[in-house]
């Protein structure tokens, strides 16, 4: 082989950074089908996240608590601003809104049972409140979504708090798409839709159009419920500083900010990957807004979108959140992307089912198909049997318990006898990007980029 041949052969195998395999696949698919990809779950791209922060455990300048002996409180109270019946939780880890329709009834029941046993709340979703869910959940947050599927005054009164959903981290500004496979007779009835259609849900509320209207909408819900229940306002993370301020002005008791790592049952991939800002950046902006208004602690803040571990929770609280909400982590705890499921006490491989969907355990994002191999995001009665409420509740309880143990362990290491005493001073950033977004010093320095 002469030199020229050698160079040509080398160049022939050189990939393009701008047109890598992923973008080539995207273009080939777009050219073949003429439509964008719709999928479930959250962003796959790597963005700065809680792993890019570290907690500064106590040494000499701070005094730690005994990890295995001294108590650390995790009690969390939400909705202290106007509601006569604020929410009292045993742990600052809540379950994010996920709809019946996207999830099976068994899963909804599992969430309620696990949350109740651990003293935390679960949340309804697009599609309304199911009887199983209300019965199994001691503390249930009822979402008021743009679509208003199954939204009714009886359920509003049965709820413990009301969450007005303005946007989701996975798709700020976008509506949802529940494909026809999931519009089973029960889902169709709850949503007043014909069975089997592809349901496109609205991206904005039908009866208010902006922050001035929202003030009156919130007032309506308070009047409806005789000022008993906390009103949460949930926004997808984008212009978070301003959105949080407007939500406070509108009268929210609790603000939920969902970062771009947040999941969805189904939406366009271009939304999931390209709209919104990372949870880390949004959390800092939200806390800034509350501090700017002198409302920190008066209006509580829940952060969601890619909260996975007890360390994530500890870091979120240290940055200024009052609680976190978890969606995708909960699904993984239930067995999402697991290679096996348990039916009648027998473990079965799910590998063939993943293969039929064109994926494999560990790579699945096919919630939108309704063919979930482990029975979580499905309305198919047989598939739904693959996750029975008993097992689901047990797995989820274990997961949440683990997170809480990690949280308290880390808090004690930072010298706190209450997880809500974690503070920004307990954190440092590992990368310049994370330092800039979270506005924390780069580890080992006092340098905060941009400050």
């Amino acid at each position: 082989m002469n030199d020229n041949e050698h160079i040509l052969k080398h160049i022939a195998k050189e990939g393009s950074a701008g047109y890598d395999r992923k973008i080539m696949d995207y273009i080939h698919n777009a050219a073949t089908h003429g439509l964008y990809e719709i999928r479930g779950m959250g962003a796959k791209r790597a963005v700065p996240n809680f792993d890019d922060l570290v907690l500064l455990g106590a040494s000499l300048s701070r005094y730690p608590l005994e990890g295995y002996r001294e108590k650390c409180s995790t009690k969390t109270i939400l909705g202290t601003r106007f509601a006569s019946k604020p929410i009292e939780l045993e742990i600052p880890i809540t379950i994010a809104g996920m709809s019946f329709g996207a999830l099976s009834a068994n899963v909804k029941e599992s969430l309620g049972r696990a949350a109740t046993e651990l003293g935390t709340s679960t949340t309804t979703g697009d599609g309304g409140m199911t009887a199983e869910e209300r019965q199994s959940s001691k503390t249930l947050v009822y979402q008021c979504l743009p679509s208003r599927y199954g939204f009714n005054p009886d359920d509003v009164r049965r709820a413990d708090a009301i969450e007005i959903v303005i946007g989701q981290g996975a798709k700020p500004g976008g509506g949802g798409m529940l494909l026809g496979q999931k519009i089973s007779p029960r889902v169709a009835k709850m949503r007043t839709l014909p069975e089997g259609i592809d349901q496109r849900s609205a991206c904005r509320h039908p009866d208010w159009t902006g922050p001035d209207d929202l003030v009156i909408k919130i007032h309506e819900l308070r009047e409806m419920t005789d000022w008993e229940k906390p009103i949460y306002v949930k926004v997808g993370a984008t212009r978070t500083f301003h959105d949080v301020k407007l939500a406070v002005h509108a009268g929210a008791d609790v603000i939920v900010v969902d970062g771009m790592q947040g999941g969805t049952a189904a939406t366009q991939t271009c939304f999931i990957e390209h709209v919104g800002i990372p949870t880390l950046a949004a959390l800092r902006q939200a806390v800034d807004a509350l501090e700017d208004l002198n409302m920190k602690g008066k209006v509580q803040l829940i952060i969601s979108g890619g909260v996975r571990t007890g360390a994530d929770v500890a870091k979120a609280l240290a940055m200024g959140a009052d609680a976190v909400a978890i969606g995708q982590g909960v699904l993984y705890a239930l067995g999402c992307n697991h290679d096996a499921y348990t039916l009648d006490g027998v473990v079965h491989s799910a590998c063939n089912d993943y293969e039929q969907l064109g994926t494999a355990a560990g790579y699945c994002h096919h919630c939108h198909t309704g063919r979930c191999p482990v029975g979580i995001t499905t309305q198919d009665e047989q598939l739904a049997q693959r996750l029975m409420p008993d097992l689901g509740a047990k797995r989820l309880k274990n997961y949440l318990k683990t997170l809480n143990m990690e949280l308290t362990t880390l808090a004690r290491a930072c010298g706190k006898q209450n997880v809500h005493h974690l503070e920004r001073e307990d954190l440092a950033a590992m990368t310049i990007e994370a330092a800039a977004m979270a506005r924390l010093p780069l580890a080992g320095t006092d340098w905060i980029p941009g400050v």
Partner: protein
Amino acid sequence: MDSLSFDLAATPLRDLNRFLHQDAVTQGIKQVTVLHPDGAHNIAVGLSAPVAVDIEGHAGYYAAGMLKHGIVTIHGNAGTGVAENMMSGKVHVKGFASVSAGASAHGGLLVVDGDTSLRCGISLKGGDIVVGGSVGSFSGFMAQAGRMVICGNAGDALGDSLYEAVIYVRGTIKSLGADARIEDMTESDYQAVGELLAAAGYTYDAHEFKRVASAKSLYHWNADANQEY
């Protein structure tokens, strides 16, 4: 005593709503008159008792929102979202109604004697709406179930993205929205319109109305429909 008056010029709205939610039934009150509403928002929201509420003047946003039982009559105009998410019962606006009248109503009957503004009956889930006058643009947008009877004219994009809801129009339609089409009236349509007109207190002939319903071409997602959604 089976009737009572609340003067909102002197009594806070909270007192009125608390009374309607808690005391009206226990005290056997059948009729409540609201004086000097002066455009107050959220009057009689969440009413679940079989009480007749007469609002003597203009109401602000969300009057009779989420009504479950009872009859609310507004002797004036109504603001945004009157009777939003109503479940059953009846709301009668004697004047005009602002945007999003009857939004996402699941049941019951909303009657507006005057005109309604934009997006009347948006996301309707099963309620009935009769408008004596005309409706603004995007009325019936994404309406899933229920019926609208429009005695006057309809603005642009009527019935855009309808599902199973049906709209009857007596006057002109400026334009139809995506997937909406005019269909022949059947005997059951004439009957339905007749009944709704009678319930609303109108004497128009059902044969003067045309039917607008979904062509159902967008029931399944269609990439070639492009911006039609």
